[in-house]
């Protein structure tokens, strides 16, 4: 039981990190960025190269990969979203252009690394573990949960206390009003993409480490889980995404333990479907970024 909770928290914190980035962009733009999963995947590969080929220690490779993710996110905005802004069907068009970009990134990765699973070199991942109560907790799990909590707190601080955060919230509420107030909306959106994708990149590296498994299609299943998380949490709600991410992680772990592993994914999507039909606002309503 204790073990399941630890495993669930651990999985859930990765989902939460991924979904936070996802929902941040949705909150600001009302558009789903389906290239988020590609950034997630590319940055896991980046960490792999930094550690495996350039022999950087993991604690140095991680921030580099996260920064790279941020810049990649800005590029995604420039290529796939900014040209479509103001078009009447920009909702569906943005969805599709981000799918296109994800496909291109995946193709590039397959071309360079091949379609097979890659692993981090031995020793890059800490393997020690300790016992807390009845549960065995690996050092890696603790680090991952700690990083996730730190990034969540950092994001909350950024959105609540900084000038950038206030401007991001202003744009989320009304781009028009923000523009009138002299906010450079395009730049704020670009910054949101940076933050969002940096979170996605962090999730990607941690996911790769956690399962010691990096592959070109690793983002696909997480992408759909991420959708479930942000819907469950309430589209655009940061605390909702964090909470729902952890909830989904726990739910999956307990499903595997009690029902069977092949039903793990059914739970996520069953929940997703039910929430949309019964309570489309999600757990924490639609107040979006205003209460972040």
């Amino acid at each position, binding site marked *: 039981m204790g073990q399941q909770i630890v495993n669930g928290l651990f999985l859930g914190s990765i989902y939460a990190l991924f979904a936070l980035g996802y929902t941040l962009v949705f909150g600001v733009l009302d558009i789903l960025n389906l290239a988020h999963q590609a950034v997630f995947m590319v940055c896991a590969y980046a960490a792999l190269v930094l550690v495996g080929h350039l022999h950087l220690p993991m604690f140095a490779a991680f921030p580099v990969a996260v920064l790279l993710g941020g810049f990649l996110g800005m590029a995604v905005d420039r290529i796939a979203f900014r040209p479509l802004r103001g078009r009447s069907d920009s909702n569906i068009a943005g969805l599709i252009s981000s799918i296109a970009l994800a496909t291109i990134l995946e193709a590039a990765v397959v071309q360079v690394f091949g379609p097979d699973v890659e692993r981090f070199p031995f020793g890059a991942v800490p393997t020690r573990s300790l016992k807390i109560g009845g549960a065995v907790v690996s050092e890696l799990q603790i680090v991952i949960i700690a990083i996730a909590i730190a990034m969540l707190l950092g994001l909350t601080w950024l959105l609540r206390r900084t000038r950038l955060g206030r401007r991001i919230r202003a744009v989320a509420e009304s781009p028009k009003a923000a523009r009138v107030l002299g906010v450079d909306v395009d730049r704020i959106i670009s910054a949101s993409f940076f933050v969002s994708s940096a979170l996605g990149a962090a999730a990607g590296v941690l996911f790769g480490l956690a399962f010691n498994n990096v592959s070109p299609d690793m983002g696909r299943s997480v992408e759909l889980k991420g959708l479930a998380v942000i819907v469950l949490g309430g589209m655009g709600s940061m605390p909702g995404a964090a909470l729902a991410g952890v909830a989904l992680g726990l739910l999956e772990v307990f499903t595997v333990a009690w029902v069977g592993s092949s039903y793990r994914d059914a739970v996520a*999507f069953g929940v997703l479907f039910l929430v949309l039909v019964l309570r489309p606002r999600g757990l924490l309503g639609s107040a979006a970024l205003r209460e972040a």
Partner: protein
Amino acid sequence: MTSSSLQDLWLTYQSTVAFIGLNGLLALSVYTTLSCGQLSLAQAAFMAIGAYVSAILTFHSGAPFAVNLAVATLLPALVSVPLGLPVLRLKGVFLAIATIGFGEVVRIFFVNLDYTNGALGLTAVPQRTSIWMIYAALGTALFVLWRIRGSRAGYALEAIREDEPAARTMGIDAARYKLAMLALGAAFAGLAGALEAHYTYMVSPSTYSFTRVVDMLVYAVVGGTSVFYGPVVGAAFLTALPEVLREISARVGLAPGPLRLFVNGAVLLAVILFLPEGISSLPRRIRDRLRARREAHAA
């Protein structure tokens, strides 16, 4: 060209021809719901239902193939109604996400169903589909969509797509039309699923994943959704493209898989950015451009 080399050509490309038809039908299934402004991404689930049902009927009943196909067409349409009643109230991205959820649940259901051999799916499905059947189905779908256009229902659909509340104050029962188009799209997808299963000898749940729906959507968007035949043009273009790319990649020395992915992504991006009405609008655009140039010359 001699008749034997023509025959070789046909043997080489007949499966491409078949898949152009199947993908065209699938693209139309996405287009059908899109024609009243609804993006449904449950089409792969409807396709799966059609494929499984028809294959099971083939294995366990002596019913003629035509009856199989009819059941595989009608059942997904029936399933789409209870799905649509709650889900079609959702708008835009929310509808898309809810239908993704439904699609995944259906796929996982089949993965866990022992009766259909779980994740491995059904194999050795007898080949019953001929290419003419695929094109007959595609032709029927095109005919139906062609006749809807310009009809009373067709105008109602366009009105709903442009401004649903305003359409409703004209007396248009938007919910009924949206449900009808969801069911029609589901029927097309189910039929395509059944035809594909009996062409490729198998039904495997992994065929009906989110990736497959994205493919259908991409066909429709690349072809263009402002005219009913646009999605078929897109499907034909993107299905034939890998054949061309295979030749190219062999000469350039790139792996065909990534190149195909890359070109798919690049084509999609280029179309959405520079050709929002799809490649089927290209002839009209070129005509307009030429006319403008002529007029400029004359002036």
